[in-house]
């Protein structure tokens, strides 16, 4: 077995008084995919940031090709070919895709930048990822999945010997994940060592050679992937058995009233003439490939995007929703898919984030901070937010815990209709199950839920009915036994159902 190209020995890390890593050993060899697993807040991202030179370890040694090294910044690590794709996006939003991909390693011809070469390089990197983004587009205009692809393109377009990917697929769909895996296989074939972090056990099984599990900042096990089943990994991670992810579906009362009806909704450039109904106590799944316009449909409904047509009926009565506030007044709450850009104020504490959406519930005139604190404590418990201090800034939470906080925030308005967009993005398998239970329970108590998800099992396991979209058009609504993967894919790819999507013309003239 070849020598590890990158290794950590007894690495410990503290943030002030809080210790998050305790003497962790970890290494990666050339040409292998080493998966790093663990619950939210286990310390995976922190360990990777240490390996990538972004943060110094409090104790322990980092070795590159067996030699101990000390990074004074990510530049040092990158010079040695160690590249980290962050869990949180690290793109300069006001700049273009190409500028971001080239950032820090621009190509020059003489004094000036060789823009053509850089554009070509960016285009090639994106093409390899099958990513249709224009290199001249500004990052601020990209969707989260596209941003992730740009991050990956940025990383792999460097001279990479060790590629560390922190939950790259959290925002990707199945098809995109496939593309990424192809890329990973090509890289490993060239001898690149890959560290892969994910909460999706099937992916980990599929791609990795070895698996290391962390729990509460401690190294638990490192084993060949072939020796471990998905259940084994889950058990190592959470320390207990996780047999059934999804609670059994409850039959919907046949006379359950329609609580929300959307008809003929059009969001120029994104969604055309979309209609659906939601019944009381129902969990309605929305499936589709990336760009199908599911998020845009909901955002259009909530007037977060400009919509040109469509009626919305709440309990049979037409309602006007001009903003999120109106929606909340009608008992509708929306959990966005873009946690950092639209969901949370990363520079602020937990308390103001939690209550921001429903601040009017905390006192008529002055904010009742004590009540806020109590509610925060309750939310931390209820949603199992792993946080060392209630004063922490949201940006210092682990990705999964941010997601839990976002869910808690959304639930603050006590919605009777809850719309969740990629609700388990970045959430570990144990907590995922808790969230599924939570949603199930909510529906049982009479709330109605819309789940937009790119994770097929999630959609299938939770939904009473599934709306499938393609290119901005609802191509079918499945229920009962028809809810199974192959059938959904048929509708999502256009093999079945309506064929006419948002045409190019519609977009151009919009």
């Amino acid at each position: 077995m070849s020598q590890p190209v990158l290794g950590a020995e007894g690495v410990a890390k503290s943030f002030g008084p809080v210790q998050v890593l305790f003497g962790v050993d970890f290494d990666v060899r050339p040409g292998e995919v080493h998966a790093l697993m663990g619950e939210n807040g286990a310390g995976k991202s922190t360990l990777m940031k240490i390996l990538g030179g972004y943060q110094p370890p409090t104790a322990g040694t980092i070795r590159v090709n067996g030699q101990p090294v000390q990074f004074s910044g990510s530049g040092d690590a990158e010079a040695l070919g160690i590249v980290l794709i962050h869990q949180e996006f690290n793109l300069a939003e006001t700049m273009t895709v190409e500028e971001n991909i080239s950032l820090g390693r621009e190509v020059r011809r003489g004094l000036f930048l060789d823009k053509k070469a850089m554009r070509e390089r960016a285009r090639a990197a994106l093409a390899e990822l099958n990513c249709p983004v224009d290199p001249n587009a500004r990052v601020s205009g990209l969707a989260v999945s596209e941003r992730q692809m740009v991050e990956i393109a940025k990383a792999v377009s460097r001279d990479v010997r060790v590629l560390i990917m922190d939950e790259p697929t959290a925002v990707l769909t199945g098809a995109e994940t496939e593309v990424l895996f192809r890329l990973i296989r090509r890289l490993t074939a060239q001898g690149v060592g890959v560290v892969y972090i994910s909460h999706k056990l099937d992916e980990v099984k599929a791609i990795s050679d070895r698996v290391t599990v962390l729990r509460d900042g401690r190294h638990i096990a490192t084993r060949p992937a072939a020796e471990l089943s998905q259940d084994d990994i889950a058990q190592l991670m959470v320390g207990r058995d996780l047999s059934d992810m999804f609670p059994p579906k409850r039959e919907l009362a046949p006379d359950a009233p329609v609580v929300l009806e959307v008809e003929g909704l059009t969001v120029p450039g994104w969604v055309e003439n979309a209609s659906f109904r939601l019944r009381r106590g129902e969990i309605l799944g929305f499936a589709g490939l990336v760009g199908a316009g599911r998020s845009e449909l909901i955002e259009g409904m909530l007037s977060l995007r400009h919509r040109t047509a469509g009626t919305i009926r709440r309990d049979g009565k037409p309602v006007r929703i001009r903003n999120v506030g109106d929606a909340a007044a009608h008992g509708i709450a929306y959990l966005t898919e873009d946690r950092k850009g639209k969901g949370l104020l990363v520079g602020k504490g937990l308390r103001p984030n939690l209550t921001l959406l429903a601040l009017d519930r905390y006192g008529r005139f002055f904010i009742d901070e004590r009540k806020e604190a109590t509610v925060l404590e309750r939310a931390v418990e209820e949603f199992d937010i792993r946080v060392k201090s209630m004063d922490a800034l949201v940006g210092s939470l682990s990705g999964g815990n941010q997601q839990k906080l976002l869910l808690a925030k959304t639930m603050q308005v006590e919605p009777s209709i809850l719309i969740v967009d990629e609700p388990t993005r970045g959430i570990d398998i144990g907590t995922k199950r808790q969230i599924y239970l939570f949603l199930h329970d909510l529906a049982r108590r009479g709330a109605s839920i819309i789940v937009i998800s790119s994770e097929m099992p999630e959609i299938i396991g939770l939904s009473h009915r599934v709306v499938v979209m393609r290119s901005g058009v609802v191509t079918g609504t499945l229920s009962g036994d028809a809810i199974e993967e192959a059938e959904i894919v048929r509708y999502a790819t256009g093999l079945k159902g309506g064929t006419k999507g948002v045409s190019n013309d519609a977009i151009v003239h919009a």
Partner: protein
Amino acid sequence: MTQSSMPDAVRRRSSGFDLKLWGPFLALAGLIVLGTLVNPVFLSPGNIFNVLTRTAFIGIIAVGATFVITSGGIDLSVGSLAAFASGVTIVTMNALVPAMGPGWHVVALGMLVAVGLGLAAGLVNGVLVTKGRIEAFIVTLGTMGIFRSLVTYLADGGTLSLDSSMRSVYRPVYYGSLFGIPYPILLFAVVALIGALIMYRTRFGRYCAAIGSNEEVARYSAIDVDRVKLLAFMLQGLCVALAVVIYVPRLGSASATTGLLWELEAIAAVIIGGTMLKGGYGRVWGTVVGAVMLTLIDNILNLTGAISVYLNGAIQGAIIIVAVLLQRGTASKR
């Protein structure tokens, strides 16, 4: 951007954060020590009252500016608005005297006009920023010119003076005191207190900070972004009007030079106080301290005769930098 400043903030938060919080107050204490060394008269109640009373104008305006800046905007028009509102107030009162006779009712009407004008000006700025989607910098640069020009026009290039019969009625609002404390100081304290309450304890304050730190998140959190921004500008207008209410009785006049560069002073007070120019994080008490510091520097320079008058500005500039350097320095070291 908010993201970028995060780890820093985190690091500081865990250990030295308190010092960042207390920095402006430390700098203020340093200045007071300096002042006392320069001239013992500095600590006389008379001088302290003078300083605080003078601070009141900029201070009250800066409290309003704290909200605008926190919500990610900026208002360059405050100085001109102060001049314009003063002018209109004076003209109104002068016009009312013949009919109503000099008296408190005329003063009250004058104040009402000032407040109305302040709110209206804030509304205009706010609407142009929110509905017109123009950068606050440009909008208020424009209105700055407009207000300044209007007061010049109103005064025919010269000075608008309050009717002398009204002057004696109105005078006590600036020169009078309650329990020995001059009214302007009291008003300043009340404005700061209410400002702090609004900033830290009400939804509006939270919303300002949320919008300043990430407008999208605010929108997705059911915040009526435009409305909050508009209100911040109107609050700023109101603060300017309150400053006018105590400014007019001081000299009883307004001219094209009234309030010149007040916008710069107000913004400087806000930033020295620790509010971030990029928005998202506002500190009302810091602003108060910042405003007092600026007046103190002037005062200390006037109390010493040691230095060439030509160099006053240099010393002023150096003190500002050093004061902030020390406060930031101490904060980051620990």
